[in-house]
């Protein structure tokens, strides 16, 4: 691999005794994984034997688009954090630092692909054209979802870590079956509503902490066994709340893919060009039915885990400073300016667009409608259900009692006992 494949530093300086280290070395071999990087922190573009070809597909307009998305979502993040501080959101999960991982990968997907996020993928949501105000419904406590996944092929956030990973593989198995059904139908001379071309893949996001959950293992086994068209996208942002990656794994996460029998790639997650290239490669591979792929985006959560968290309790400010120097926006800005792809006016416009988005989000958040609990009665089951009907009837009667109270007095009883019935 070329000089552009930088060694990881993740396993340097681990506080383990020498003997243990030697043992691990003997068993595992060199513990670093090569890392794909195209755009350096200084803003210069390097080359890569495989992925330069993908980077070459990006013209100035596309690169400006990457920057605009990253800046927008960072601005959105600031706004949502402020909204939480003002009591408008119950919680916020900031993404600052991870913009390149999310915009780069999300932009590499195609509309027919289906995306399963975890709960921090606001940037990916932006690339899928999810209304960011809808994204806030869950955090405002007016919905457990907030958008219709069918509109954008962007699934709901999942708060149970890793639970979405087998869903992604199952969905990918469904795409595989659709193709077979379509082929069978075509062979029989018929046409039908089956998903035909263009071919689709599934991408699923999860964190380095979530990678320890059994569901990730099981879904990788399924993906491999059935060669499902799925891309596992792990954002290794180095911390699972307060626990460092080293507690989740002793080897680079991307190396795990080998054990399942498909490619694993570590990419500089702060390099939007490399992330885009690697993800495009992986999704193409998956769509062609060649194999699943695991991508580990090596990045950093610069801020708190959530607005409920205090990172000063578990990590030093030098570490944060080191990573701030690798900022994904700054390095793309340097590159865009150096190449003459963007000027002051462009960056001004991006800032103005960000402020506009923030104002929109601020306004719409206040206006997000609180649902009637009757919608929960309506949506617990897809088909009619007698217990729901009974409890809803009771609730209506009970509520009506309060409305009547001023007048004739309430009748709040569950009046279905013999006494009342006979």
């Amino acid at each position, binding site marked *: 691999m070329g000089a552009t494949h930088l060694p990881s530093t993740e396993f340097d300086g681990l506080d383990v005794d020498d003997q243990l280290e030697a043992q691990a070395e003997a068993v595992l071999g060199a513990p670093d994984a090569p890392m794909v990087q195209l755009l350096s922190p200084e803003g210069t573009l390097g080359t890569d034997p495989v992925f330069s070809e993908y980077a070459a597909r990006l013209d100035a307009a596309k690169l400006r688009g990457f920057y605009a998305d990253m800046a927008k979502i960072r601005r959105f993040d600031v706004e949502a954090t402020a909204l939480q501080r003002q009591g408008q959101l119950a919680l916020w999960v900031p993404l600052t630092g991870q913009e390149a991982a999310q915009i780069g990968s999300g932009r590499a997907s195609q509309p027919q692909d289906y995306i399963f996020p975890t709960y921090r993928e606001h940037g990916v949501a932006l690339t899928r054209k999810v209304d960011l105000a809808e994204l806030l419904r869950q955090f405002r406590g007016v919905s457990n979802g907030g958008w219709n996944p069918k509109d954008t092929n962007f699934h709901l956030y999942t708060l149970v870590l890793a639970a979405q990973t087998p869903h992604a593989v199952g*969905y990918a198995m469904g795409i595989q079956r659709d193709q077979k059904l379509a082929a069978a139908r075509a062979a029989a001379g018929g046409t039908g509503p089956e998903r035909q071309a263009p071919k689709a893949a599934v991408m699923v996001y999860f964190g380095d902490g979530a990678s320890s959950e059994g569901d990730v293992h099981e879904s990788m086994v399924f993906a491999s066994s059935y060669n499902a068209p799925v891309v596992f996208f792990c954002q290794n942002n180095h911390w699972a709340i307060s626990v460092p990656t080293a507690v989740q794994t002793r080897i680079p996460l991307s190396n795990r893919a080998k054990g399942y029998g498909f490619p694993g790639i570590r990419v500089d997650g702060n390099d939007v060009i490399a992330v885009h290239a690697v993800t495009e490669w992986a999704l193409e591979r998956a769509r062609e039915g060649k194999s699943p792929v695991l991508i580990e985006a090596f990045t950093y959560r610069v801020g708190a885990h959530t607005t409920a968290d205090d990172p000063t309790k578990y990590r030093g400010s030098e570490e944060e400073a080191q990573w701030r120097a690798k900022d994904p926006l700054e390095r793309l800005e340097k590159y865009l300016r150096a190449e003459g792809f963007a000027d002051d006016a462009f960056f001004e416009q991006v800032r103005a667009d960000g402020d506009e988005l923030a104002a929109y989000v601020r306004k719409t958040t206040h206006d997000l409608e609180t649902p009637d609990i009757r919608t929960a009665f309506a949506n617990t089951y897809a088909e009619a259900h007698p*217990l729901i009907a009974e409890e809803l009837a009771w609730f209506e009667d009970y509520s009506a009692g309060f409305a009547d109270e001023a007048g004739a007095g309430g009748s709040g009883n569950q009046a279905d006992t013999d006494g009342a019935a006979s």
Partner: protein
Amino acid sequence: MTTMTIAKAINEGLRATLANNPRTLLMGEDIGPLGGVYRVTDGLIREFGADRVVDTPLAESGIIGTAIGLALSGYRPVCEIQFDGFVFPGFNQITTQLAKMHSRSNGNLTVPVVIRIPYGGGIGSIEHHSESPEALFAHTAGLRIITPSNPHDAYWMIQQAVDCLDPVIVFEPKRRYWLKGDVDTDAPGRSADPFAAHVLRAGTEATVVAYGPLVPVALAAANAAAEDGHSIEVIDLRSISPIDFDTVTDSVRKTGRLIVAHEAPTFGGIGGEIAARVSERAFHSLEAPVIRVGGFHMPYPVAKVEEDYLPDIDRILEALERALSY
């Protein structure tokens, strides 16, 4: 009308569903060439191929989780969990994901996944092969739970489960897999209400509600009571979630006494739910407290003593005697 066992009836029901709907598929451990450890899927892989009858990796969370994904993409997966005690690695997926996908998507997504679980004791098996965990699932909103007790119901209920837009868990009474009975494959069974209880035997002095493996026991107890001159009504609940409380309450209004029998421990079980509902709905009709007959509050005991654990005819008769003494 043909005669077959419950296992064969489910097999035929699955066959019909696979033949009728190209988007139905079966998933589970050893369900392919082996036909499942109880041979319920016997022969289906030969007929429908390995894409429709899928031998999965040995991973319950993976089975349920990928079934959710398949359902989201328009398929109708029917998962087999090999034994009751092994559903728990998949419990997270069933309770936090499967049960809630429809509501958390504000009704936009449906996940019509069917999970078949052979359950209950009485087969002299070892640990984790004889449990009745239905109450753990019934407590979770968003799931439907049914349990056939005879071949005719088994044949139709599995097909109805696949048709249902909601997730359905089918608890199959494994000690009755070899129970034979008539199956009317031409009956309009598919359109009948799979969640309705059936009155199997009319009576006037007390009602016995049972489901799954205890239905034949309840019928036998009612027959024994009849020899002593008592008229006992027997209801096969068929559905554990939702529960057809109307049929149960109507019966209690007539008989004035209620016994609920199941294999699962009585504490926190379905029997308690039925007792509570009936006392809310028909308190003035009750001549005696509702009596529960069930398992003890202990892990399912070793096979050599399971006869002392499992409710049998005598335990139901004892409960009847107590109820009739009020």
